[in-house]
């Protein structure tokens, strides 16, 4: 194998090596540890971009770990969808890491950098793996790291929300194991491509179990993606976590969406007997209700962080409503909206941090307080982030929502999707307008208890960069939509994925 073909494992290997070294040097040489961690993020971004370039020839690359051939060994599979997710995760990680270092968040505990790297290890692994049990393991890795990151900085509110978050995810993992055990018991394989072939050949007696397993598995992914009615854990957790950590978590719900996009067409596609598209009728109503509840939460949120948490929920709902039609062009629109919604949600959390650091005593609550430093710059960033997440022109949210509307035009579900997407946008605008005017326009005379802090302008870099990326997504909408369309074409035709993983087409 050439060096280029080994590159597939780099996004998993880099954080796995950086994390323990960062842990070792952190106590004695902080700066070295921080530099190592930042270097890890940048190296990961470089590897992800190189993999994206590799994926351009439309071939699906398979990396058999340890040389054990599928379906017996564990494989990493690089398709266009995985490459897009890798680039997105590495970009977001670099942004958030910069922000955490600049604002000193990483100094509030010892293990921020190692946990951050393990989180990335879990994310990248989940995007690349072609094995269902391996997906479970990477989910656990990213969850364990996220527990640590979520509690980073501590505080009573964070601990209370942390207990809920941990318990619900352990129950989720239990369900994942049950679904996976059922699928293994039925098909005798854990390799997703192999499973796809065997599911199609199951006898009639097993169809009921298969359907149960399919729905259970998708329910677990829906829990990770925080889709109604499994969304209740998200707002409290994200609003209680440190804003920079919550910004990284913006991609965690997208891992659930990724898993749904990866597994459903591949394993439970048209050939799957009783399980063929079994989750489809549930997914669309749930997604639409999620968007509705999310934007209602934006309207009701009392702090910018709470609003941002609900906005992440809402954007996942909007994203999945396009996915749930399972049409190629709608899937392409969703894959354009996915990077946008992740970056926009992260930008909003970072802006919330910038607001909170400047208003002592008021933090980021939507209440008028005394004037604070850099008010105009922060206000501009808040407005742009809000425009981005709600989906108004000129930023990429508008393009994304337009693509979703256009691609679902003429479908039976179109009235529901159009009504929800357009209606929730209006609710979102109202919500953010209320917060923005309370924080930036109304000011009270300063009282003795509250003083304005001036943390410098360095903490505006990361939010500005995130919004700059949204601008780049808008300007580069042509090439990005081409990428998304090509990725959607690969997803909707799983035969090529199966052919790449199992070249003999055997089993």
């Amino acid at each position, binding site marked *: 194998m050439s060096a280029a073909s080994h590159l597939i494992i780099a996004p998993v290997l880099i954080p796995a090596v950086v994390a323990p070294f960062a842990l070792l040097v952190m106590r004695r040489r902080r700066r070295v540890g921080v530099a190592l961690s930042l270097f890890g993020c940048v190296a990961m971004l470089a590897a992800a971009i190189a993999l994206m370039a590799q994926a351009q020839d439309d071939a699906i690359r398979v990396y058999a770990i340890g040389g054990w051939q599928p379906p017996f060994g564990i494989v990493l599979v690089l398709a266009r969808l995985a490459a897009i997710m890798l680039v997105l995760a590495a970009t977001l990680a670099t942004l958030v890491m910069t922000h955490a270092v600049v604002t000193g968040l990483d100094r509030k505990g010892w293990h921020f950098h190692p946990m951050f790297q393990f989180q990335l290890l879990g994310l990248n692994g989940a995007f690349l793996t072609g094995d269902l049990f391996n997906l479970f393991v990477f989910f656990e890795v990213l969850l364990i790291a996220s527990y640590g990151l979520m509690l980073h900085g501590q505080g009573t509110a964070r*601990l*209370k929300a942390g207990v809920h978050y*941990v*318990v619900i995810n*352990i129950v989720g993992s239990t369900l994942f*194991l049950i679904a996976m055990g*059922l699928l293994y*018991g039925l098909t005798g394989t854990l390799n997703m491509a192999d499973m796809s072939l065997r599911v199609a050949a199951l006898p009639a007696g097993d169809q009921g179990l298969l359907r149960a397993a399919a729905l259970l598995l998708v329910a677990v992914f829906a829990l990770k993606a925080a889709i109604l009615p499994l969304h209740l854990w998200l707002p409290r957790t994200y609003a209680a976590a440190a804003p920079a950590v919550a910004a990284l978590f913006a991609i965690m719900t997208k891992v659930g969406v990724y898993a749904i996009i990866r597994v459903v067409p591949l394993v439970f596609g048209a050939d799957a007997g009783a399980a063929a598209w079994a989750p489809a009728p549930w997914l669309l109503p749930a997604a639409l209700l999620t968007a509705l509840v999310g934007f209602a939460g934006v309207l009701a949120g009392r702090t910018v962080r709470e609003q941002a948490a609900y906005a992440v929920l809402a954007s996942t709902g909007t994203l999945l409503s396009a996915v749930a039609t399972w049409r190629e062009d709608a899937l392409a629109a969703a894959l354009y909206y996915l990077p946008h919604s992740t970056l926009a949600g992260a930008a909003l959390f970072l802006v919330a941090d910038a607001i909170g650091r400047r208003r002592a005593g008021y933090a980021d609550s939507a209440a008028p307080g005394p004037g604070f430093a850099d008010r105009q710059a922060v206000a501009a960033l808040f407005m742009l982030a809000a425009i981005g997440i709600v989906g108004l022109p000129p930023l990429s949210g508008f393009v994304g929502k337009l693509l979703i509307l256009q691609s679902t035009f003429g479908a039976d579900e179109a009235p529901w999707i159009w009504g929800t997407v357009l209606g929730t946008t209006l609710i979102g605008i109202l919500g953010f307008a209320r917060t923005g005017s309370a924080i930036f326009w109304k000011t009270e005379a300063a009282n003795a208890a509250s003083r304005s802090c001036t943390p410098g302008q360095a903490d505006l870099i990361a939010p500005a960069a995130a919004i700059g990326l949204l601008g780049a997504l808008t300007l580069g909408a042509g090439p990005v939509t081409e990428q998304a369309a090509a990725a959607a074409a690969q997803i909707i035709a799983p035969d090529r994925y199966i052919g790449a993983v199992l070249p003999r087409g055997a089993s």
Partner: protein
Amino acid sequence: MSLEFLVATAIGALTAGGIYLCLRARTFQVVLGLTLLSYAVNLFLFAMGRLIVDRPPLWSKTTTEYADPLPQALVLTAIVITFGMTALAVTLALRSFLESGTDQVDGSAEARAIDEEAKR
């Protein structure tokens, strides 16, 4: 009674107990519930390789019949992960108790008031 009946009953009883305890209001009971659930899942995964008695899990040229080794490996991984998770949940529940003064899962002020009422 067949082996299948025994294992199925055990999984069912563990799951029922686990779900009941998970829905309780105290963190310690919830942690116990999670542990029971993980036992149930481990048994379930193990049974997914079919219940076979007295066969080696390794393949060799002389054996014709062998037990499926993969679920055993899966259960091992699952045990390690749940062990770590349970340890984390216990620590977290303890910290939450020490910080909020109550072991109610919500850790709310009302729960604390009820606790103090009960002590009197």
